[in-house]
């Protein structure tokens, strides 16, 4: 329960190809299996989802967004739980490949990088299509840049069965895996201190490093960045006038067709 590894499906083994046609085949096999087992629920039919994400921050980018439809027991992250290595990779370096593999391996359906790169402050990615098939819950994550290990997070939101548009606001979470030293040094690999990049080109340099004193190594609400106004020094390489935020940091609209 605590570690949020996606559980492997207990359904009969089927091939987990990445392309859509085989997904559809797999899903129908899966559906047949469920119906044969007599546990198919009429309300759990496929849902065509159209999703948009707005970056609500003043001056932070989002790395490639990861959207996943999965079952009720799966999580990309859980508040109060330890980040998985896959989540850590995303939160510290923006790499969503392992999260995608985990969800696909568990029979889920995903959209990777719908904005085709970074989502700038104030920018929106629209018309992201996802057929959730028999999957009942939706999760969304992306790293917030420039930070050490902040990410936007939607954890296991139950997909409504009634058609309509639903708005959800996302908080910024701290993966709890890296100290928030606020030094932009290219450090994006898991376990490597520092921030990989400031995409806006608006970070300073030669910061001495923020000693934030956090003892929470579990996923938690991010305390926000400190920053300073000294681009050539100070404690932080971040700019307090540009890189701070208050929650929420993203607006998600899910339209159930």
């Amino acid at each position, binding site marked *: 329960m605590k570690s949020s590894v996606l559980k492997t499906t207990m359904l009969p083994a089927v091939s987990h190809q990445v392309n859509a046609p085989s997904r559809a085949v797999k899903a129908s096999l899966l559906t047949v299996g469920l119906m044969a087992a007599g546990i198919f629920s009429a309300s759990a039919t496929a849902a065509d989802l159209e999703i*948009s994400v*707005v*970056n*609500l*921050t*003043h*001056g932070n980018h989002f790395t490639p967004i990861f959207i996943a439809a999965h079952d009720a027991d799966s999580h990309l992250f859980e508040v109060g739980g330890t980040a998985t290595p896959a989540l850590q990779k995303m939160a510290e370096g923006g790499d969503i490949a392992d999260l995608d593999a985990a969800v696909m391996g568990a029979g889920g359906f995903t959209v990777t990088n719908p904005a085709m790169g970074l989502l700038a*402050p*104030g*920018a*929106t990615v629209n018309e992201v299509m996802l057929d959730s098939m028999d999957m009942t819950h939706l999760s969304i994550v992306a790293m917030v840049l420039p930070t050490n290990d902040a990410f936007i997070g*939607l954890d296991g*939101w*139950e997909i*409504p*069965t*009634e058609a*309509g*548009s*639903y*708005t*959800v*606001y*996302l*908080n910024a979470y701290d993966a709890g895996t890296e100290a928030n030293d606020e030094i932009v040094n290219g450090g994006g690999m898991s376990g490597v201190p520092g921030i990989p990049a400031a995409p806006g080109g608006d970070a300073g340099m030669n910061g001495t490093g923020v000693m934030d004193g956090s003892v929470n190594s579990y996923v938690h*609400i991010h305390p*926000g960045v400190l920053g*300073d*106004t000294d681009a050539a020094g100070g404690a932080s390489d971040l700019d*307090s*006038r540009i890189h*701070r*935020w*208050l*929650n*929420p*940091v993203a*607006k998600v*609209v899910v*339209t159930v067709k």
Partner: protein
Amino acid sequence: MRYLTNTSKKHSQKYNHKHSLTAAALIAVIGLTGCSDDDDDSPAPEPVTPTTPVAVMQTYTVTVTNLTANQPMSPIAIASHSADVMLWQAGEAANVALEKIAEGGDAADVAAIEGVNSTVSGAGILMPGMSETITVTLDEADVANLTVATMLVNTNDAFTGLNSYDITMLAVDESVSMRGMVYDAGTEANSEAKGTMPGPADGGEGYNSERDDVDFVHIHPGVITMYDGLMDSVLTPSHRFDNPAVAISISRTE
């Protein structure tokens, strides 16, 4: 902060994506409306009386509470309008009517927005911790969406409120309660400097047509203050705020 994440399937079905405060509304409403969306027991249709049409009025009361520590709010502006009007859109540039509210607390331009059928203003500045109840009476034909907006006056261009909220589902004696977050109009740099903010912390300038910030509406990053490294700031720690900054409840009384 759970108002930020919508986990309510039951109540979310009635709202559409234009409502920026939907998530807030959904959580806040849970304890208040009970089974209000159960429409099985709706009353029988009124008999049709073939007389000359008379304007049928509906009355709503809007109660706004300032939840901040030290951010007086400019006179509460309420607008009634058609469902397609949005006073602001996160991620989009602010219109001038909104810019005037956010920079100077002046809502005079809202009435001229196409689709707005009436506007009401609060009696004056709404101080921290205070509540004000404003009555809105509308011709039944005009009942659609409500917008509430107000400036946090000890800031450059922070505002809060409720964006295009659908009131048509409110029956008589029903009410909804929501919390509002603080937006940054993106039209004026958050310098916090002397002479740039109209509130009592500064007594400076309100609206200025120049746009020297990011020029899109977003969630306000908060104020920094002189105590947290912004040397030119005239703000002090009590001017900081977090979300939510305002509580808004709407009741239909007739």
